[in-house]
C-alpha cells in the first residue's frame, strides 16, 4: 500500500503547487511602499506649467494618485472608469503624467475627458522611480497621514474599484 501512496502524495503536492502557480500573475510585483509614507515630490502641473503640485499638500485627505501617459495602451481601457469615478465626487483623483510630452498629455485628456483634479508632469520619470512605477497605469490609494495603503498595478477595472478601492477609501475617510 505504502508503495503506491508515497508517489501519489508526492504527485498531489506537486500538482497543488502547480495549480496555485497557474493562478499567480508574475507581472504583479508587490510594492514595498505599502504602509510607508508616499514619497514627497514637487512637480509642475500639466495644464498650468507655472504652478507646482506636491504630494505634501494632500495631507489630511484621502486621495488617489493615478500614474498615466498618453502613450500607454492600457490607460485607454481604464480611462472611462476614472472619468466615471470623478463624476461621483467620492474621492479626488490626481494624475501623474509619466514620461510624456505636455502637448500629447493635454491632447489625450481633451479627447477622453479629464478625470483628474490636476495632473503633475513627470517628464523624466524620476518621481515614477520613487513610487516604484514599472508598468503604467498604476494607482495608489493614499490616506490622510500620507501613507500609501494600496497599489493597483495595471488598469483600474469597475470590479476592482467596487470591491477593493472604494471600500478601502470609505474606511480610510471614516478614520
Amino acid at each position, binding site marked *: 500500500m505504502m508503495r503506491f501512496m508515497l508517489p501519489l502524495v508526492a504527485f498531489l503536492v506537486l500538482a497543488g503547487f502547480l495549480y496555485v502557480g497557474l493562478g499567480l500573475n508574475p507581472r504583479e510585483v*508587490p510594492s*514595498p511602499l505599502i504602509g510607508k509614507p508616499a514619497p514627497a515630490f514637487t512637480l509642475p502641473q500639466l495644464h498650468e506649467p507655472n504652478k507646482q503640485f506636491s504630494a505634501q499638500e494632500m495631507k489630511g485627505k484621502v486621495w488617489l494618485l493615478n500614474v498615466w501617459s498618453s502613450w500607454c495602451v492600457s490607460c485607454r481601457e481604464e480611462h472611462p472608469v476614472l472619468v466615471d469615478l470623478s463624476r461621483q465626487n467620492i474621492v479626488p483623483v490626481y494624475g501623474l503624467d509619466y514620461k510624456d510630452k505636455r502637448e500629447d498629455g493635454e491632447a489625450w485628456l481633451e479627447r477622453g475627458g479629464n478625470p483628474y483634479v490636476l495632473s503633475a508632469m513627470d517628464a523624466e*520619470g524620476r518621481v515614477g522611480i520613487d513610487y516604484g512605477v514599472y508598468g503604467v497605469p498604476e494607482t495608489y490609494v493614499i490616506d490622510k497621514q500620507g501613507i500609501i495603503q494600496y497599489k493597483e498595478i495595471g488598469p483600474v477595472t469597475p470590479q476592482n474599484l467596487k470591491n477593493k478601492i472604494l471600500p478601502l477609501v470609505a474606511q480610510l475617510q471614516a478614520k
Partner: protein
Amino acid sequence: MKRLLILLLCLMPVLAFAGEAKDIAEDPVVEKRMVGLAENLRCLVCQNESLASSHAELAEDLRREVREQIKKGMTDKEIVDYLVARYGDFVLYDPPVKSYTVLLWFGPFALFLIGGGGLFYQLRKRRSNPPESELTPEAEQRAAALLNDNKENQA
C-alpha cells in the same frame, strides 16, 4: 556616380547605429561599476532580463539613476538598497534569506536529504534480508546441475 552611391549605401549602417551609443556614459569606470551592479538586478518590465541587458525604457532610466548615484559616491550597497526600497526584493537576482524565502533557499537541500535518506533506507533494508529463493529444492538442484554442465562444456 554608381560607386558614390554604393559607398553611401555602405555608410548607411554607420548612421543607423549612431543612436545606440547614447546609453554609454562618458566615464568608463562608472560604466563598468554600473554594469557590474545592473547584471545582478532584474528588469521589472522584461522580467527575464537583467537591468544591464534590457532595452526597456525603465531599465534605461534606472541605469541612468545608478550612474548618477555612483558619481555621487554612494556605495554599491546603498544603491541596491535604494532600488529595493522602491521595487522590493524582486529586483534582486540573489534574494536574501528571509522568512518567506526559506523554502527557496533550503527546499532543495531538504528534498536532497529526503531522497538520499529514502535511498539509504531502501538499500540497507535490501542488504539485511536478501530475497529468498522461490525455487523448490528439486528445481534448485537441477539449476545447479545445469550450471555445472555449462561450466564443464565451456572448459
